[in-house]
């Protein structure tokens, strides 16, 4: 197995790594870069626990090769807060008890941020469709939807 040398940007920082050509970006992020916020639920694109953005597009890190990140911009949950200060979505997930075990949470947060970046005032239906690629075995989704609505409101207020 030949290693691929990759230079990329993760959460704004330049990062270099060598990985086997068939290794997923999910495994690279967790095992080589040490960013374990990105989770593995299924490994086949169904659960969204591994959600990240790649050049601004929401994707499943399990369905991207580590080699593909060359020269791209990757963002993960670790890049969401501002130092100690939580992003409004993170704050509202806590305040609304939108998580229990928390395995799905980084993926939901990344997917929800991607939605709110494009649509600052989504309807409940729009939120549910946008989060259809994220599975949660604990919460029953209602609290997640409410947290996203509340965070959307906070973000709209911040912008004013």
């Amino acid at each position, binding site marked *: *197995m*030949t290693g*691929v040398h990759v230079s990329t940007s993760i959460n704004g920082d330049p990062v270099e790594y060598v990985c*086997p*050509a*068939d290794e*997923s970006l999910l495994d690279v992020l967790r095992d080589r870069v040490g960013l374990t916020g990105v989770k593995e639920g299924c*490994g*086949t*694109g*169904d659960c*969204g626990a591994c*959600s990240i953005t*790649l050049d601004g*597009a*929401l*994707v*499943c890190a*399990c*369905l*991207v*090769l580590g*080699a*593909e990140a*060359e020269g791209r911009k990757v963002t993960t949950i670790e890049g969401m807060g501002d130092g100690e200060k939580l992003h409004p979505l993170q704050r509202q997930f806590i305040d609304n008890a939108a998580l229990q075990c928390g395995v799905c949470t980084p993926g939901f947060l990344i*997917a929800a941020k*991607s*939605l709110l970046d494009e649509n600052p005032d989504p309807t409940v239906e729009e939120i549910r*469709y*946008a989060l*259809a*690629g*994220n599975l949660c075995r604990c919460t029953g989704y209602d609290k997640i939807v409410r947290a996203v609505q509340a965070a959307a409101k906070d973000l709209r207020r911040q912008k004013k």
Partner: protein
Amino acid sequence: MRYESPKTTKEAVTLLSKEKGKTFVLAGGTDLLVKLRMDMIEPDLMIDIKRIPAMNEINKTATGFKIGAAVSGRQLGASKALAKAWPGVVEATNLIGSDQIQGRCTMVGNLCNASPAADSVPAMIAAGAKAVVVGKAKRRAVAVENIVTGPGQTSLAKGEIIEAITLPKRPAKSGDAYLRFIPRTEMDIAVVGVAVSLTCKRGVIDSARVSLGAVAPTPLLVKEAAAAIIGTKLDKEALENLAAACSAACNPIDDKRGTVEYRVRVAGVLAKRAANIAFERAGGKK
């Protein structure tokens, strides 16, 4: 496995034809990387086409649209011109998976994966789309309905790659639509998919194409179904004839998602609904 990311189609074709081992073209990877992960494939070489600039573009041409093979569902959905001319093709492609999958999946990957239930394929067939197939010696335009030859099988020869999909120019008073039936509201595989594309002249349907997905080993172009509505204003009788022609064309399997009987019946029902939407989009009035 080796990974290559060529910068031109020519380079990709050279890599593809030179390699002796198992080679796969990597577009969005939403089928391929699932198979890799499940050990269903053991590639020697993967050729990533996303660094080929021409394959990332959507262009309006003299003859219609040219959509690069690496264009994702998300990029496709953002094109206003395309959504206006071919709403059915765009909505079918945008039905694939979740937002995460949309960030990566391509129409060409959907086509070449050759699943009988692929959502964008009936819409492309109804639209009269062509695949621009490039090999070492020549390039050819192949009607989309002639690409898939069976489940997981295509008519592409070794060393051939699809560079783009072309959609014809849209005359006035045209409309297309795609509908699928799934047991859930999203993130599921079509039990039946139906695409209808039509053009009206003086209020009457002048030309039409109808395609079915998930009801046979390959997506179908159903000429009898188109014939049933051409020359009509999509009155009740025309719709019934359309449904009957669609049901008659089905050759489905029985599985946990739907029985043969169910699929045959639903194909007719969905065809009527899709035709109504396409007719309305074409400005047709009953």
